[in-house]
């Protein structure tokens, strides 16, 4: 049993009043002369037992009466055995997880699925009492705490968002939040389409204190197809088709501006390719679109690419045989040009001319002779670089940033530790960044126009020269990294493109769109749901009926007041009739 106003239980001290009054009254009664004391003593002797019983009965009745009134004022909540019986519930910490990821925007039975999910979530919050603690968690992962009214207001203004919902992680977070709350009951209501791809690797740890109610899919979702992240390479745009497996192909249109450059049919798991027109040097934007279906959010996606002439490269010092050979391959493929009189990129183990002089960048490979490190570091310092070579460091595997992920797991045997230089030159340029690491230490860094490698590109130092990724890496290094460009990346968000610029130069772009996994509307099986979230999904009727049932309580104050009234009547009878 719990109480809505537990502080009022302090009033139980009032139960001592009858006993105290009894004692106080007995200690100081008025005194009077009465000569017929022998009759009185005799009468008292004969009725002493009855009077004592009556006193005891009155004391018990009055104490019980006060206890009942105080308990009733504290509003006790007692468990209800019958679920269908109405009534309140004991104070509950409730977190409602509402799935407003892109997949919830699907139209089912002529109505957005999200509206039905939102109505169910709204019902859970509206059923909460004033003493409950409430949280609302949606696809953005933000745990919002609020009152019933404030959360209902948030719900009413919520729309389908572009972020994907990692259901396991969000539910686990919701469980942790309510479990930490001191209220006696804890529930998490999961209102989602239970999309199979929303179940990531996170498994919810079962907590006995927290009841997790999961709404089962309201209906079988329609087959869906969508457009994945478009990749542009070698003048061709590859448009991957995503969605529910087995969905028939749909018509895909690829446009650049108003011009349709390709049409094709694509089913989930396949791709449509579109040769890009030669539009000249610069950044270009295209669009791939599907005919509208029930889920509109994944029917359109933008893509960007950069057309630029091959970089003019000059070798400085000794870059090693593998770099020399790779440059030859790139030159044949017209990916690099000879520098001539105006080199754009210099690559080697010597610092070239400053960028201010030639307007290009430097890719610095450490010298093979360790004795040359000092001279190299001085040259870096003169160039204003914040980085310098230190002593040898431990071998390990390369971990590259997303645009250099082709370097991942390539072994490095020898390397110098790259460290920030002390003194005025230690201040990094605004675009200074670590592009790849080995054992968590910088292996490839860029500082302004200088790109520094920690290992020579030689098989004695690293396995990279013999890896298939070597020539593409060098191409990326020369034509993009060395030029100071950032890669074209993709991110979740409303469909649009954001360009990154420095001055009047465009350095990179981020293409936003829904996560391709959102297109697969296939729901998870009950087994998958239970394995990940620790509870089986419930159909809508059960879900609505089971809300707060673990903590459903009836307010017993009315019963207690009725009992108190009955006791008062009995007390009146004992006090007046049974004399």
């Amino acid at each position, binding site marked *: 049993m719990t109480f809505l106003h537990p502080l009022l239980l302090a009033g139980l001290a009032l139960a001592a009043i009858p006993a105290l009054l009894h004692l106080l*009254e*007995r200690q100081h*009664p*008025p*005194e*009077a*002369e*009465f*000569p*017929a*004391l*022998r*009759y*009185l*003593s*005799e*009468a*008292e002797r*004969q*009725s002493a037992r009855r*009077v004592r019983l*009556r006193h005891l009965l009155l004391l018990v009745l009055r104490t019980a009466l006060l206890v009942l009134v105080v308990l009733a004022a504290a509003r006790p909540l007692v468990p209800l055995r019958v679920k269908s019986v109405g009534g309140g519930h004991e104070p509950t910490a409730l977190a409602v997880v509402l799935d407003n990821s892109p997949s919830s925007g699907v139209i089912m039975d002529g109505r957005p699925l999200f509206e039905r999910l939102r109505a169910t979530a709204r019902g859970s919050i509206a059923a909460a009492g004033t003493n409950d603690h409430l949280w609302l968690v949606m696809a953005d992962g933000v745990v919002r705490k609020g009152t019933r009214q404030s959360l209902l207001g948030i719900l009413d203004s919520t729309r389908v968002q572009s972020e994907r919902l990692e259901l396991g992680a969000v539910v686990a977070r919701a469980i942790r939040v309510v479990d930490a709350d001191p209220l006696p009951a804890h529930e998490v209501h999961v209102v989602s389409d239970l999309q199979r791809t929303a179940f990531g690797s996170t498994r919810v740890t079962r907590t006995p204190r927290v009841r997790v109610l999961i709404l089962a899919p309201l209906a079988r979702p329609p087959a869906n197809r969508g457009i994945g992240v478009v990749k542009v390479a070698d003048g061709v745009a590859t448009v991957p088709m995503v969605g529910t497996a087995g969905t028939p192909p749909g018509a895909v249109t690829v446009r650049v501006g108003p011009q349709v450059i390709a049409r094709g049919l694509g089913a989930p798991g396949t791709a449509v390719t579109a040769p890009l027109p030669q539009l000249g040097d610069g950044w270009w934007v295209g669009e791939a679109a599907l005919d509208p279906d029930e889920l509109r959010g994944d029917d359109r996606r933008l893509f960007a690419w950069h057309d630029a002439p091959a970089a003019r490269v000059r070798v400085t010092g000794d870059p090693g045989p593998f770099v020399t050979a790779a440059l030859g391959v790139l030159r044949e493929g017209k990916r690099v040009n000879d520098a001539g009189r105006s080199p754009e990129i210099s690559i080697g183990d010597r610092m070239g001319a400053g960028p201010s002089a030639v307007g290009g960048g430097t890719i610095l490979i450490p010298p093979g002779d360790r004795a040359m490190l000092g001279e190299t570091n001085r040259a870096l310092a003169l160039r204003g670089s914040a980085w310098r070579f230190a002593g040898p460091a431990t071998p390990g595997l390369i971990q590259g940033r997303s645009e250099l992920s082709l370097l991942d797991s390539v072994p490095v045997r020898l390397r110098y530790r790259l460290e920030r230089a002390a003194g005025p030159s230690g201040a990094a340029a605004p675009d200074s960044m670590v592009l790849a690491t080995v054992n968590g230490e910088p292996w490839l860094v860029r500082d302004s126009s200088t790109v520094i490698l920690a290992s020579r590109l030689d098989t004695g130092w690293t396995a990279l020269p013999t890896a298939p990724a070597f020539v593409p890496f060098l191409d990326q290094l020369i034509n993009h990294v060395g030029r100071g460009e950032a890669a074209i990346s993709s991110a979740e968000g409303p469909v649009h493109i954001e360009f990154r610029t420095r001055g009047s130069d465009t350095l990179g772009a981020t293409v936003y769109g829904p996560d391709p996994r959102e297109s697969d509307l296939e729901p998870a099986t009950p087994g998958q749901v239970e394995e990940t979230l620790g509870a089986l999904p419930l159909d809508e009727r059960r879900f609505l009926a089971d809300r707060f049932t673990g903590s459903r309580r009836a307010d017993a104050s009315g019963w207690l007041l009725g009992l108190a009234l009955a006791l008062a009547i009995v007390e009146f009878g004992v006090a007046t009739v049974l*004399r």
Partner: protein
Amino acid sequence: MPASRLDLLDPSEVARLGGIEIIAQEVVEGFLTGLHRSPFRGFSVEFTEHRAYQPGDELRYLDWKILARADRLFIKQFEEETNLRAMILLDASRSMAWSGSPLRITKRAYADRLVAALALILLRQRDATGLVTFDEVVRQVIPARVKSGQWTRIVRGLLDTPDGRGTAADVALQQVTSLVSRRGLVVLVSDLLFDRDLALTALRYLRHRGHQIIVLHIMDPAEVELAGPPEVRFRDSESNASVVVRPRELAGAYAQTVAREVAAWRTACRRHGIVYHTVRTDLPFGLALRLLA
């Protein structure tokens, strides 16, 4: 007119009208207005009725004819003609000086006036009347006389007897038995708040000596029906004992106890040929005197 008869008015109102002498005279005047013959029966030559024989009765008044015919013992009673020797025994113990309400007179005050009136009636009939007052000991002894000024002496004896302390009536009654030598009427006026058995022993002795005995049990109404604040400590001024009671709770049991006590007195007195009456202090004096008629 009934309104002018003090014997029928409330005793507390009557007591405010004057001293014992005046009140007694007025009460007796009113009382005798309604009577034409002496209310007291004694031993006379004029036969009036029979009554059952009681141990101690003189055999010479036994009706031998009835004994011979029915083999039952009856005593012949006669209309008073000759002087009656009456001795009034007044309990002046501390318990008598108590009233349950300031609106009522004390039991002692009531008894004083009743005794004075009774004595006046007896003396007017030319009956020798005396008075003994007692508490733990005998306080006043006025031998039974019929001469003039006897009533004044009796009244003076009442006034000169202060409120006593305890009540050891049995001791006092035994002393009284030695003071009442000639047979006659003995009237005991008391609240009887003493040991019943010991008191009855003395009364039985008097009865055995041939006295006619009347016991007037004086009771304040508050002694009959218990009342008071919700809780009170009642103290007996004689014994200084006290008890804490809730009058409302104990009223029923107390009333039953008083009724039992009165019944016990009545039964014991009847058994020994003693006349017993309870007299509440709110009873008009005339009605109290009528109990004796």
